[in-house]
């Protein structure tokens, strides 16, 4: 059973909060902060939210099947470490390979052994974070030149961050809306038992979702490492929970079956605008977390679920 009234919101989960919140932030900021619509500020917001957007899109895929992946932040950190440790020619394939292995471990634990996704990904989060710190104890090293170029260059007047966002949104949209796999993801999330009885394989797509989420973490890690041009074993620490916050603000239901790419994008933009707006308005950065927490509670208050559960 889906969490909120599907009749009311549809399977996109887009409602008053997910659409109204970023809009309200835009109106508020354009009225209160004159620099908000400056090209430089828009580019800043874009580059600040790119990595979170990529991770949130991965988290969306997992949330649609009723899962959650809090290990994705550790994948970002491990990617950053691998990029500076491994030979530059093999660095990106190594990072993507490691992410596939982590996603596979999560997927097997959840799909075959029926471990609660929160527990399984908590275990891999701790393990992978330890592994990243074992490789490198603090930030250092030099990222491959190609990765730095891909993250920092600009094409046709648009910064690279813009293209990373467009590409990520495009790929995830095609996977979810234009493929048989996407259809199965929504079916499993809405009711796994019905999906299985209708002949759709359940375990395979579940594992694939966790692999996709870890890959999203690796791509975000590649982008971020390119931006800062060095490796950092704690680079992704906040991403696990921030990505859950972003999709929750975007109307995605953690119990599965309800959510959309547009929701994940809007949720991420809302988080980005909160941070940017508070900077522009001169509010202490320490209150970012407070405002985000309050908004999160506000968002879930307006989206009452029917199910009882984690």
């Amino acid at each position: 059973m889906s969490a909120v009234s599907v009749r009311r919101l549809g399977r996109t989960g887009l409602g008053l909060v997910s659409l109204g919140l970023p809009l309200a932030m835009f109106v508020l900021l354009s009225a209160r902060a004159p620099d908000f619509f400056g090209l430089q500020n828009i580019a800043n917001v874009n580059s600040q939210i790119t990595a979170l957007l990529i991770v949130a899109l991965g988290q969306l895929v997992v949330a649609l099947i009723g899962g959650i992946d809090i290990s994705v932040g550790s994948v970002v950190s491990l990617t950053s470490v691998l990029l500076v440790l491994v030979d530059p020619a093999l660095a990106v394939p190594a990072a993507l390979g490691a992410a596939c292995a982590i996603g596979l471990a999560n997927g097997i634990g959840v799909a075959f052994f029926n471990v609660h996704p929160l527990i399984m990904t908590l275990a891999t989060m701790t393990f992978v974070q330890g592994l990243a710190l074992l490789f490198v104890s603090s930030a250092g090293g030099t990222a491959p030149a190609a990765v730095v170029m891909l993250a920092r260059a600009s094409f046709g007047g648009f910064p690279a961050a813009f293209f990373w966002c467009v590409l990520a949104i495009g790929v995830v949209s095609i996977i979810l809306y234009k493929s048989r796999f996407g259809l199965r993801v929504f079916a499993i999330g809405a009711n796994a038992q019905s999906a299985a009885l209708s002949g759709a394989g359940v375990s395979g797509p579940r594992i694939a979702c966790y692999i996709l989420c870890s890959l999203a973490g690796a791509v975000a890690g590649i982008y971020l490492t390119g931006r800062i041009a060095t490796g950092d074993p704690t680079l992704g620490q906040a991403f696990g929970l921030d990505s859950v916050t972003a999709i929750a603000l975007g109307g995605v239901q953690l119990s599965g079956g309800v959510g959309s790419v547009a929701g994940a994008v809007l949720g991420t933009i809302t988080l980005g605008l909160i941070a940017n707006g508070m900077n522009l308005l001169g509010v202490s950065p320490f209150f970012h977390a407070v405002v985000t927490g309050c908004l999160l509670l506000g968002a879930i208050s307006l989206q009452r679920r029917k199910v009882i559960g984690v």
Partner: protein
Amino acid sequence: MTGAIVKESAASPHWLKMVGARLANLPISYIGTAALLVGAGLARPALLQPFLLLLILRQAAPLGIAVIGQSLCIRLLSLDLSFGGVAMAVSYVLTSGYLPFSEPVLIALCLLLGLAVGAINAFFIAHLRASSVIVTLAMVLILGGVVTAFSQLRSPGESPELLRYIGQARIGILPVTVLVWAAALIPMALFLRLSVFGRYVDAIGANPRAAWASGIPYIRAIYAAHILSSLFAVLSAFLLVGFVGFGSLSIGADLALNSLAAVILGGVTFGSGKGGMLGPAAAAFMLMFSFNLLTSFGLGEPGKEMAQGAIIALAAIAYSARSARQWA
């Protein structure tokens, strides 16, 4: 006659099988603790000295107290990840000197804070059916943000005299913290085993929809569990602040995740309606003992994190495989 003889001779293996099945159903924490103690006896016998064991027990006490609340929430198909935020706030209220009150008043204020945090968590989870993960994480963001912002004005300082005494003193050879842990654990375990509330917890955990339809007070049970959980988190933070001797913003940061690991190792699983209080308590000791053992092997923080992750994953997989066998 012949039939009776056959029956009698078959009774013994059956009885043995029952004992075997009973042993196999014990929480992993019992078997794990025993295995760790044997392993330490062979590789690091020094760790088994009573003095050191009591020290490890004292280290495990704050986690053990937090685990009581966490296991209660998990048995009700909920979760409390707000321990870190609560511990941070308690540490700041007690040690910053920002609030000009006497020690008992500050302690009472912290308990009130725990009560409020638990009630707010429960409100969102019970009335709005919100995901407990999101609600309690939002609570961490709010509490952590407020405390971090305030700590720019005034940083945490020394902990109150009373809590330092509780955290560091001993009665005979027994640390007072261990007595506090026992004083929280034993009544709670008995209460859940003997009271009607305990039966409600089991029923809701096994099938919340069926429990709801049967008229079991789900909302009241969630309020009770989350308020108790936050109060235990406050008590746990008292012990940590007293034990360390001063406040810190990172105090109790790993309490939520470690408590989750301990609850799983202790045999409490989501949605099974099963689980006791002693298994998770043994798991709290097991985790602390394993951290000490790994340190004695020269394993640094990263190695410990990896071992912790592997332990959680293996324990969760073992439980799932075991329950799948039982249902087959």
